[in-house]
């Protein structure tokens, strides 16, 4: 790292790569992240995909982007406004420009800034010359031509040669940040081990981009950026995406419960990455069944649970809606089941690739009749691991379906992760039948645990325990079908008590930032964690009367939540929906809240939360500290 880079150390820097779906932007992003991690930075990433698989090249709706926030940390969001943008074409520039910070460095691939390229992006004038880039640091590089020159010796077809441009650009960016190329070289060598010319061409492009940085820097045409190392706790780390952590968490839950797991799903955006990750975890006792539709997927998972495996199904909002009837069957039959909902923008097909938190109602209330079930939510990519274990623990303890909420952002976002030790997790208990029943088997199979209301998990194949289960109401004590009026009342109460009882087993609600009482509590759930956490930390430097509370257990809430919230004058709830947690808080705890709704398909920016919360704080306390706020993530 050069002296200049030392000097330039920012607490955090936000970088965005944007181009066509086919430009390899996502790969470039993940490779860049690996080397920043190896260099000791904390990071968070956010890939922003277009809805179309291969939208027409050069169009604004075909832009694929990858945003990385790196620095000393703690970094918990992909960052509000990028300080550096790499735009592979005019469309990428057009889409990204409103997002980036004033004065940001913009590298454009001039090869695509032709009359046609500009027209496809809807530019009438070339933005490089009409003043719209004034106030930014524009760096024009003919990336495609330079890439073609660099890879010429390897004899690739022109289209294949052009595809190396992401590595050329990455080479340049690596140089700007003073990062080593080694990890990337290793990756290229592994990935293209079987194709020598492609391998050599990509390496050549990477080095050429890197060398360009060095040369251009001499002419002061390219800035150098540096980031401080993070203060990580000692241990072994890896990078992890939410989908990956969730898959590993499910496998871990199976291991902790010592049961096989059957994951049944139907492909849907953005839940499919989980299916893909799990499909590779066969050695960990996880079977993957791709069903014919969403209903079949949940039903097969229920069949598996009846058979003694842990049944898991996964989807996104529209698919979950289709599963609803079957979920109620699992409630009635008192079978364990995990329902993973990777939420996306809706209603209907909505915004499949954009993130939202709008399935909370569906999870908590969305079934016919009185059909309660536990709901938990993951807050960050690595948190998906713990939440998967927690959800399984609840499902098996209480013999109930459990909703696990995640979202499109979490599924694809990545962060560094201190690899957990499996010994730190208690084994997951399953309800076994206490000895061979002396009386009626049907009755014994429905004899529930007094505290958790979980019944014994008895499956076909076990001798002398034949019994029948189903969706009809059954007698509370004998387990046989019953249409008795009083019994239905009692069974409905029992199903409610079962879910309520979960609160007796879960940890008390903790506070993320701030004191246990004060003027404003900012209460969130799910993937808004990162933005709220940073926002409240930023505020905390100026005013210590604001706290951050983040809820993992949404149904039931932790027992102390009501009391905790009572210690604040105002409860502010930022959500990527129109105020669903606010409703649930009002419903379950009688708490009045001020919702802060954002449904643009994009995660919250830290600054948005800061401003909203400070506005609320000013209303409550009469002090307006807004003018004194400083930006930047981390310490």
């Amino acid at each position, binding site marked *: 790292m050069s002296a200049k880079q030392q000097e330039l150390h920012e607490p955090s820097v936000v970088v965005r790569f944007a181009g066509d779906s086919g430009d390899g932007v996502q790969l470039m992003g993940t490779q860049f992240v690996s080397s920043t991690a190896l260099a000791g930075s904390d990071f968070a990433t956010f890939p922003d995909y277009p809805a179309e698989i291969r939208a027409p090249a050069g169009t604004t709706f075909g832009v694929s982007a990858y945003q990385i926030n790196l620095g000393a940390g703690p970094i918990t969001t992909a960052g509000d406004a990028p300080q550096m943008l790499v735009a592979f074409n005019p469309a990428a520039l057009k889409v990204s420009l409103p997002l980036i910070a004033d004065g940001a460095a913009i590298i454009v691939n001039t090869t695509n800034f032709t009359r046609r390229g500009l027209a496809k992006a809807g530019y009438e004038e070339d933005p490089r010359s009409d003043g719209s880039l004034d106030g930014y640091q524009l760096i024009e590089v003919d990336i495609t031509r330079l890439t073609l020159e660099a890879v010429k010796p390897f004899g690739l077809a022109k289209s294949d040669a052009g595809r190396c441009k992401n590595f050329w650009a990455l080479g340049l960016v690596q140089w700007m940040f003073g990062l080593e190329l080694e990890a990337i070289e290793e990756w290229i060598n592994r990935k293209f081990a079987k194709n020598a010319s492609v391998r050599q061409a990509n390496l050549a492009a990477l080095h050429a981009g890197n060398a360009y940085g060095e040369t251009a820097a001499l002419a002061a045409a390219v800035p150098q950026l540096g980031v401080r190392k993070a203060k990580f706790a000692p241990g072994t780390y890896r990078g992890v995406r939410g989908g990956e952590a969730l898959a590993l968490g499910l496998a871990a839950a199976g291991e902790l419960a010592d049961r*096989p797991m059957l994951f049944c799903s139907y492909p849907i955006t953005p839940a499919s990455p989980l299916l893909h990750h799990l499909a590779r975890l066969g050695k960990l006792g*996880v079977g993957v069944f791709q069903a014919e539709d969403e209903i079949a997927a949940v039903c097969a*998972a229920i069949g598996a649970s009846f*058979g003694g495996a842990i049944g898991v199904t996964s989807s996104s909002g529209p698919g979950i809606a289709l599963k609803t009837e079957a979920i109620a069957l699992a409630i009635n039959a008192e079978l364990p089941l995990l329902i993973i909902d990777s939420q996306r923008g809706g209603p209907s097909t909505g915004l499949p690739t954009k993130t939202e938190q709008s399935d909370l109602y569906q999870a908590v209330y969305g079934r016919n009749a009185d059909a309660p079930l536990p709901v938990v939510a993951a807050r960050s990519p690595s948190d998906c691991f713990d939440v998967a274990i927690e959800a399984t623990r609840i499902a098996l303890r209480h013999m109930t379906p459990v909703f696990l909420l995640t979202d499109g952002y979490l599924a694809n976002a990545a962060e560094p992760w201190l690899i957990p030790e499996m010994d730190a997790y208690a084994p997951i208990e399953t309800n076994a039948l206490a000895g061979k029943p002396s009386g009626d088997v049907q009755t014994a199979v429905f004899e529930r645990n007094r505290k958790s209301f979980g019944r014994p998990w008895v499956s076909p194949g076990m001798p002398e325990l034949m019994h029948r*289960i189903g969706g009809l109401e059954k007698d509370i004590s004998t387990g046989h079908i019953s249409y008795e009026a009083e019994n239905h009342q009692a069974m409905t109460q029992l199903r409610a008590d079962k879910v309520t009882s979960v609160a007796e087993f879960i940890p008390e609600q903790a506070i993320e930032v701030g004191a246990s009482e004060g003027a404003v509590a900012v209460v969130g759930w799910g993937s808004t964690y990162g933005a709220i956490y940073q926002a409240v930390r930023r505020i905390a430097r100026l005013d210590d009367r604001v706290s951050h509370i983040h809820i993992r257990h949404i149904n039931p809430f932790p027992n102390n939540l009501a009391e905790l919230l009572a210690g604040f004058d105002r409860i502010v709830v930022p959500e990527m929906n129109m105020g669903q947690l606010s409703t649930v808080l009002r419903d379950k705890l009688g708490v009045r809240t001020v919702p802060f709704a954002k449904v643009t398909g994009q995660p919250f920016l830290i600054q948005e939360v800061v401003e909203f919360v400070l506005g609320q704080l000013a209303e409550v306390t009469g002090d307006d500290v807004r003018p004194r706020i400083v930006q930047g993530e981390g310490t």
Partner: protein
Amino acid sequence: MSASLTARDYATSQEVRWCPGCGDYAILKTMTRVLADVGAERENTVFVSGIGCSSRFPYYVETYGFHTIHGRAPAVATGLKLANPELDIWVVTGDGDGLSIGGNHLLHALRRNVSLKILLFNNEIYGLTKGQYSPTSRLGTRSPSSPAGSYDAPVSPGLFALGSGARFIARAIDVDKTGLGGVLEAAHRYDGAAFVEIYQNCIVYNEDVFEAFTDREHATERQVHARHGEPLVFGKANSKGLRFDMTSMSLEVIDAQERADEVLVHDETNPMLAQLLLSMEAPAMPQALGVIYRVEDETFESAFYGNHPTQLKRTGKVADALRNTNTWTVE
């Protein structure tokens, strides 16, 4: 142990709740007898059903049972089979459950060849909801929801199964103990998805809808029992036979004595013949019964476990999987 069980050992103490005279009683009786005859292990046998009159079945059989939701029994049974491939799973469904709301799952269970014995009780009516026409009701069926007669064309369960890729298709009549018993035994023996259509009389809402061929008077003349390797003959003293007419590409009835060498010999592995047999409708043609189509093929569970070589057993450790990527250490 199981060998000594009798049909009564496979019956539960539950009070049976079908209408008196319903064809379901006869099917239940033959089913429990067959379970005893084949020595089915009760703890490894499961009946899975959807919703409808027929789907009450699991409550009456002393094995494991799961009365699920409308149309989804094949999907639930598929998950169960994958979780424990040792189980002997029977799916009980009806024409509404299996071919209307659950048509999709039936299709996929059949094409995948999951080892499930799928019994479709066809009574050509919605019984449990009080008599509306079903997807197998014939055109013009008068019902509460079609007072002037139904006007949508029915589906043929056998042809649907064949088109879905079923490798085993059989047919029987509820009260025909021998015919039904034989078909159920064959289904039990078969390794793969066995589809059995049972003509079931709904005495309340669709009485005698199959009388064209089930009627004692007509039975001999209008039923042809398919037996692999034997001539397709029927009628009094097997006087009639089926012949393939090259010009019309269809089956025709001929005199089996006079033109004996033209009578088709049943080949249960021939899908073309299966299609022709399944298409015949009484009274114009005899109704084909018995095992109409049967070919061996890899089962879904075997393919699934081929793809999951560890058999859902844990051979790896999560702790290792967590580290199976680029890692870095902070001192």
